[in-house]
Structures are given as C-alpha cells and as structure tokens.
C-alpha cells in the first residue's frame, strides 16, 4: 500500500463511500478506501434461513447485538467498544448507531428507498422555515434514475401524480410485490380517511435484473442478503469497483484527521489501525469523506491546523451544525378481523409492500405543524419471536389447548404503524468535540446537543392521533398505554438512524461547508459524500438520496480530476 499512488482516498464504505468508489474506479481513478470496521462478506456471513431457536436467547436483542442476534451489524450498535460519544448536560437524549464493518449501515438498513420531492429541496421557499438546498429536484432526478437502476428498487406503479411524492420514470423500478393480507386490510381504513396507500419503493430485486439474483421472498433483509438480492454496498457497489483493479480497501482503519500540505490542500489522511493501535498516514491527490454524518464531522473537527484552529472547513463554525434526524414513533394494534385467517406466507420482500406517503401538504396550517410524515406499516404472519406471548392480552393466563388455540387464532393479527417525519434544523441540534473525553486511541470524541422543536413534537402528536383513528376504524385495540403527548412520544434524537447534515452544502462558504457537489469551500480537493451534506431532512428515508448525491458528486470529482483541477 505504501508504494501505491492514489488519486482519491475515500473514508468509509457505506452508501456514500461505496457509491463514490464505484464511480471513481470505473472512471479510471486509483482509489484507496479506508473502513474503520472489519472486512465483511454477506455471501458467507448472512444467516439467511436460521431460526431464532438456533440463536442464543432465541435471537432477542442484547447490549452486544441491540437489534437482535441475527442483525447484520458487526461490532456496533448504540455503543461501539472503545469508541464512546457523549451527550451535553441539559440536552435531550441523543443516541448514535454505528457499525464497524465493510459496507457500514447499508448491511442492515431498512431498504426503504424513497426519492425526496421537489418541495424537499426548497423548504424555506415553501414556508420560510429551514433552508433551501443549492440544487433542485430536477438537478438530482437523473441521478435518482441511475441510482434506482443500479441499486435495484421495487415498487413500480402507474403514475400517481401525488404532490412531492415523485413517480419514477418508466424503467427505473421493478414491479411491486403484491399487498399482503394485512396491507389490503389497512389500506381500506386509510382510503376511507381520504389518505393514499401506494407501493413502497424497496431496495430489493423483486423481478428479473441483469447481473443480480431475485429476492427469495423469505428471510429478513436486516440480516443482510447472501444472494445480493437487496442493496448492500458490499454486494452491489464494492465488487464491481474491485473488478476494475483500481480499488484498494484497507479495513480496521479509523481515520481521525485530514492532513494538509503547505499550500493548504489535502495531502491525505491519518488513521489508527483499530487492531494494532498503530498510526499511519496515507496520501492521495484528493480526499472524500463518507464516514457517516457524525464521524465525518468528527474528522473535520479533529483536523486542526494554524489555518483552521477550530477544525478543517470550520472557519464559520458550520461543521457539526444543522444536525438532523427523522421524527419517529410507532403504535401497534390487535385486530379481531384478522384473527383466524387461513395460514398464508407473509414473509414478502423484506420491506413493506405498500406505505402511506404524506398526504397533508396543502393543509399544514390547519394541522398545526409545518412538515409531514409518511407511514411504514408492519404486520402479517412473520417468523415467531420471543415476543409471541405479546399476541395475548396482558392479563391472559390460559394454558394447554386453550392457549394453543388462542395463539393460532391471533397469529398475524397485529399491525404496527410507524411514522417517519421531517425535522426542521434548529440551533439546538449539533455536535462538537467533547473537551475532555477521548477514545481508546486518544482521539477526542463527539459531544451531541439535541432538542426537538414544536414543529416536530406537534407532528408526533398527529402521528399518534392518526394511528389511533386507523386502529379504531379497523375495529382494533391499540397496545396498552399509548402516549399521546407528542413531546413524550417522539423518538430520541438519532434513534431513527437518519442523522444527517453536519457539513451541509450551500451557496457559499458562509452558509455551508461544501458546494452542491460536496466539494469543500475551504480545501478544493476535499469532498464530503455522505449524509452530512444534506440541508433538510425530509420524511423520506435518506439512503437513496445519499447514494444519488454521492454519484453526482463523484462524477464531478472525476471530471475535475481529468481536467487536472485537483
């Protein structure tokens, strides 16, 4: 590695890093990718058809594996050994999900692949709140088209022409999987409320796609996919990048600093090998940060020099600012109408087959909150877990044949409604370096500050109200003790694992850290290509947009490289 000369160093191997590597290596550039976690190969490490009975504790979540034993996440979760973070005194809770594995969070993500809409790029122009992006939907639309075709996204349907819910052009999406029984069921209640239910866009190969395997319509996507039928950086982006011969990957390389030359350009990066503790510096003609919004901000803030005493690209104090997450909460219900349905295979394609896009764009004022949410709805007869007893009322005590009959009858009769909503960036949500706490290798860690605004808590209260109405219309009984106060019901900051916006793009160096192509204003050969560049946090889950933006930015970087402009 020491003798190689690289055109680009990419820090991170997830959605942004993987996409950047895919494009830059195909463009003929020599790329060194540095990943903080270990090597990971979903083809041989995915527990595809394992039952919970084969796992310790029947697969329930533990501090070692918070999302369950079979969740793909390696060496991570809400805590990463030896790599702490802190939350400022007086802050509302914030939690930070990190894996330490090749492909990052693309290995376990929810595979919900929704495009941002035109209004999402111009929120301030719409209602005076938040900030406008320096690009429009039309600027990104061609990259969404390309991304959907590469990622493999299901959910094609005739154009719906719904406001701010883009229809993909023909040929971008594969056919939607048919609604399952519970999806047919809930759709009727929404319809009665005048709310649309449409096919989900899922990053799952649901039909024939050249070079890819089709979904087996079994096993949860969160475990990863041994046949590469869903989108993971490790199955879709990195293998073709490696095949070019232009990509070198070094794992267990925790980057903590961008190094500058005398002229103030990026010379390379410094990292610590997580296994040996040794420090290394590597060089290249340009550097791409795609370590995830938190880690990318941390690297910039830790890159201090006489010219940048408060951290690289932070002259105007913008790094770490405008941190956002999705608003989230869920309410479940049990439905007598679904009891005793004939056995049916509800495993499906991993993501929901249908969902509810936000329907209230034109009545936000009367609703009392400025931005909306979509609804992700889960149910059906999924592989039983340790929560089976939860199918029964809390005070239920039957045994024997009576118990067996009740469980059989109620299996598949619960539905969970989860809202994912837009958050407006505010001055109380940001990250900075903790003045005292350091990680195992002596590198300062992030300290988070968080406070939801009224826009978000009012939206959360509306989610609960909507879900309770739907449950009622369907003749169901909500779970006990539903919290209706939005401020109490709302998720913790970071909990939706959509943290974005710590190095946002903008029009100039006073309002942003990077330009519309992720190129930093302060250091022209330093780029950011992950969720950190996002200016707003629409209700739509961010991964598809991270990939599309990274592709657009990588294309610009490749052009600059060819022009000798780096």
């Amino acid at each position: 590695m020491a003798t190689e000369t690289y055109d680009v160093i990419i820090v991170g191997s997830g959605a942004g890093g993987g996409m950047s590597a895919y494009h830059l290596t195909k463009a003929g550039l020599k790329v060194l990718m540095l990943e903080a976690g270990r090597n990971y190969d979903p083809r041989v490490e995915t527990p595809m058809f394992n039952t919970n009975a084969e796992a310790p504790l029947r697969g329930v979540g533990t501090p070692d594996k918070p999302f369950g034993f079979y969740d793909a996440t390696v060496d991570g979760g809400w805590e990463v050994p030896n790599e702490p973070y802190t939350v400022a005194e007086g802050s509302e809770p914030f939690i930070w999900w990190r894996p330490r594995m090749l492909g990052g969070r693309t290995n376990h993500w929810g595979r919900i692949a929704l495009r941002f809409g035109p209004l999402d790029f111009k929120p301030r122009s719409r209602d005076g709140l938040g900030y406008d992006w320096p690009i429009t939907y039309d600027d990104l639309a061609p990259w969404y088209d390309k991304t959907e075709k590469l990622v493999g996204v299901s959910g094609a349907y005739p154009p719906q022409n719904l406001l701010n819910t883009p229809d993909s052009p023909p040929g971008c999406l594969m056919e939607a999987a048919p609604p399952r029984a519970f999806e047919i069921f809930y759709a009727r209640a929404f319809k009665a409320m005048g709310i649309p239910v449409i096919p989900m866009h899922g990053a799952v190969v649901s039909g024939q796609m050249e070079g890819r395997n089709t979904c087996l319509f079994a096993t949860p996507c969160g475990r990863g996919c041994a046949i590469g039928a869903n989108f993971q950086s490790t199955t879709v982006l990195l293998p073709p990048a490696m095949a070019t011969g232009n990509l070198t990957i070094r794992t267990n390389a925790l980057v903590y600093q961008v190094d500058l030359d005398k002229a103030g350009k990026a010379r390379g990066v410094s990292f610590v090998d997580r296994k040996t503790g040794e420090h290394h510096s590597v060089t290249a003609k340009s550097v791409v940060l795609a370590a995830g919004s938190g880690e990318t901000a941390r690297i910039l803030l830790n890159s201090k020099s006489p010219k940048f005493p408060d951290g690289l690209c932070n002259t105007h104090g913008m790094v770490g600012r405008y941190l956002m997450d999705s608003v989230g909460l869920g309410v479940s219900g049990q439905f007598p109408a679904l009891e005793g349905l004939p056995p049916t295979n509800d495993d499906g394609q991993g993501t929901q087959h249908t969902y509810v896009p936000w329907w209230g764009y034109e009545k936000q004022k009367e609703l009392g909150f400025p931005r909306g949410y979509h609804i992700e709805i889960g149910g059906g007869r999924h592989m039983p877990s340790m929560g089976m007893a939860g199918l029964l009322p809390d005070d239920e005590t039957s045994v024997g044949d009576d118990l067996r009959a009740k469980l059989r009858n109620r299996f598949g009769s619960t539905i969970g409604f989860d809202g994912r909503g837009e958050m407006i960036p505010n001055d109380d949500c940001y990250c900075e370096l903790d003045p005292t706490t350091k990680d195992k290798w002596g590198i300062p860690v992030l300290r988070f500050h968080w406070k939801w605004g009224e826009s978000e808590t009012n939206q959360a209260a509306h989610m609960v109200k909507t879900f309770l109405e739907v449950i009622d219309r369907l003749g169901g009984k909500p779970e006990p003790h539903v919290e209706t106060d939005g401020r109490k019901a709302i998720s913790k900051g970071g909990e939706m694992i959509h943290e974005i916006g710590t190095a946002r793009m903008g029009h100039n160096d006073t309002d942003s850290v990077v330009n519309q192509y992720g190129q930093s204003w302060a250091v022209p050969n330093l780029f950011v290509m992950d969720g950190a560049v996002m200016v707003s946090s629409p209700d739509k889950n961010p991964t598809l947009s991270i990939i599309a933006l990274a592709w657009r930015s990588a294309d610009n970087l490749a052009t600059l490289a060819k022009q000798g402009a780096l």
Partner: protein
Amino acid sequence: MSSTPPQDEPYVSKIDRRSAIAWMGVVGAALAGGAGVIVYGERMGGERVTRGYGTDPKLVKPEKAPWSRIMVPAQLQTAAILADFILPASGAAPSASSLGIPDFIDEWVSAPYPSQVKDRPVIMNGLNALSVHVLKTSAADRAKALAALPASADPATKAFWKKFRHLTIGAYYTTPEGFKDVGYIGNVARTADPGPSAEVKAVLERELQKLGL
C-alpha cells in the same frame, strides 16, 4: 398428552450431543444418558463463565451461548413440570419439555445481560418456591399447586408466572414444531410472492364489510 407425568420421569436435556460435550467441558461431570442426550447431574468444578457472546458472534452457525448455566436439577425438573403445564403435548404438537424449554430457561436466567439478570431472581425464586409443591408430592397436590399459579395474588408468584409463561411461549413457538403448531409456513425460498390466496382475500372482504370498509 404425555402418558408419564414429568415428575415421575427425570427431565432429560435436549441439547444436542456436540453441545453437550462442549458443555460438559465447562461445567464438569454430567451423566451420559444415551445417544445425543445427557441427564442432569450436579455440576462440579470449573470457573463459572459469565461473558456474553460479544459484538461479533458467528451468525450462520451460532455457537452455544458461552455463559455457564446456573440451574440445578431440582430447578430444571420444576421448570419441566411447569412448562408442560403451560404447553403439554397435544395431538401432533410435542410438549414444552420435550423441546428442551427448561434448557432454554436455564440459558436465559444464566445469561449476563441486563434483561436476563433482572429476570433471574424472579424465575429462580419462583422455581424454588414451586418445587416444594411439585417435586416428590402426590399427583393431586401437584395439580392443585399448578392450577393455583395463574390466579395467585402474591406479587412475586404473579411475576414469576407471567415471566415463566412468557418465556415458555416464546421459546416453544420459535422452534420448527412451534411454527407448525401456530401456522407459520414461511422461511422457504420462493421464485415469486403470489400474494394472499383467493380464500384469504374472501375472508378479508367479509370482515372489511362488517367494519363498513
């Protein structure tokens, strides 16, 4: 129903032979009890292992949970009796004890994680209290003690009953036998998802009409 009440037939571990051999290495001597099974004996020697499986366990072929088991034969026997009171054999469905649920309860209460550590005294104290009434007692007394459990007003007993039943149901229905009993027919590779059958759709339609939807 099983023809022999659990009390009269020692509970036999259902852990497989490979696991049993490894397990014996940890806990010391146990009595060999025929092909693929061991009978619980008193555990001897060896340091108690209290570590979890770590943040990067093998997923495709999970290894046996590394922590030492803490339940003694009387507790396992009591767990077998209670698990079979909750889910006795019925038709083609096997009993809870025949699926090794007591072993699972042992794995659960022995685990080093916070949730399981919290459950430990609830289950262990409950089993100890119940054992007096179900081990070495008449069938009538045993039946009476078991029947009294769900209606007990004693907070500790209530908590024990609720938690033990929750664990038994979860452990039972996460097995292939449990899948069959409850009607889970997934976890099989398919070339396409055809969606629900006409029969299912017809039932749904009737129910939706009843709801005015």
